[in-house]
């Protein structure tokens, strides 16, 4: 099991993405890197910063950072831990999460809305990572 938000989890997620033909197909034209941020609260003492560089259906780089200063990604998606958990458990559609402002997005929303299939496949990939959540 990998703890959500840890470097090990991010590496496992990268592996899941790069072994998914469905993601490769759905995201074949996608160009854009991300910070996925777990906001502080509950067991999360300070924000967790996960960086992923997604490019033409594969993940070129994935790692955690102590804060947001290392990169300037095209997209920053942030939410508290319970909301991330709902997304990974497929109880919350990420686009619906953004529309209800449970998930905050910085970046080109129009580009995200045109990549809905890729977003779905990305969530699908998280379900293949044995995940435990910080307690």
């Amino acid at each position: 099991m990998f703890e959500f938000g840890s470097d090990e989890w991010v590496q496992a997620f990268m592996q899941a993405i790069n072994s998914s033909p469905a993601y490769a197909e759905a995201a074949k034209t996608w160009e854009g890197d991300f910070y996925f941020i777990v906001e502080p609260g509950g067991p999360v003492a300070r924000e967790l910063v996960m960086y992923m560089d997604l490019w033409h259906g594969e993940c070129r780089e994935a790692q955690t950072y102590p804060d947001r200063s290392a990169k300037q990604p095209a997209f920053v998606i942030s939410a508290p831990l319970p909301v991330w958990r709902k997304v990974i458990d497929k109880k919350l559609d990420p686009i619906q999460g953004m529309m209800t402002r449970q998930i905050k997005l910085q970046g080109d929303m129009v580009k995200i809305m045109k990549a809905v299939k890729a977003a779905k496949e990305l969530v699908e990939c998280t379900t293949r990572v044995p995940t435990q959540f910080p307690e």
Partner: protein
Amino acid sequence: MWYFNSPLVVFGEDALNELVAIQGHRAFVVTDSTLLQLGHVDRVTARLKEAGLEVRVFAEVEPDPSLETVKRGAAQMADFGPDWIVGLGGGSCMDAAKAMWVLYEHPEMAPEEINPVVPLVLRQKARLITIPTTSGTGAEATWAIVLTDTAENRKLALGSRENMADIAIVDPVFVAALPPQVTADTGMDVLTHAVEGYTTSWHNDFCDGLCLKAIQLVMDYLPRAVLVGTDPEARERMHNAATIAGLGFGNALAAMAHAMGHSLGAVFHTPHGRAVGLVLPYTVEFTGLTAPDRYADIVRFLGLGGSAADAPRLLAERIRSLAREIRQPLSLQDAGITRAQFEAALPKLVENAENDATLVASARIPDSGELSRLYACVMEGRAVDF
């Protein structure tokens, strides 16, 4: 968590007289030249003037309104300074009015920036009234906006929940003389909204009843409205059905039939309602293979019998039977598309559908190969079995 948005809906005979009670100073009417010629604009402006409002009309909205038209209308709006905006027409006019409203309130924005995530903060300068003149799009009761980027030849699905009209006036006077073909096309749009609103993965308790009722109204009244255009009851019930379906799918999202239909519209210029109605039974069959339960509800509600597993097939058959009755095409071949045209267009059809925002809410999302096969079925009129 989710939302249910609705305007105040004023419906039925003489609903238009609600305009006489509007409080304000200046109203800007967004419409098209045909409605001006038909006298529908005069019906509206006369009542607004009776309410004491100064009125200006922008009658330059074209079918599939462009970004340029929206910017031009917003500039005239800024010059006039209305406190009410009236979108009068089909979906094109109402969508254009919604987009112009955003630019009027926020001149620094581009229409492409209107999205459901970033708050817009509207209603600082004006409020919106929508008045549909077809029984189809439901745009009077949705916040979605579809515009066309003519430079890139693509449709843009935009909108924010704040774009919802304050008042929707659903008066059957505007549809009493709609031609049969327009009635049929727009009626199939209503059916597609209602079926997809009920079966999308974003379906919810607040929308379900609306969608089922709209499906029932279409099945009962669309043939009468098409075949006996002078039937006032059929016209009124179909007009109500369009708004009811708009509320239903607008708060649950449309799905794959819209993604595939939008693509057909962009490539072959098939009218929107005809396009989505044409692909609807095929998407029912495709989605129903893995998620039949919601279709079983619809089939039960319509009293069609059969088992849950059989429901998608039964519903698809019922939709095709309705289409036959109102002389709508059942395949792309029926719609006049040749095999050569289809094969040349297939890659673009698939690419457009894959990139359509409505695909997100489909209960089953096809990959590129499945979309190609689906379009091949639609081309040949062959039932989907994969």
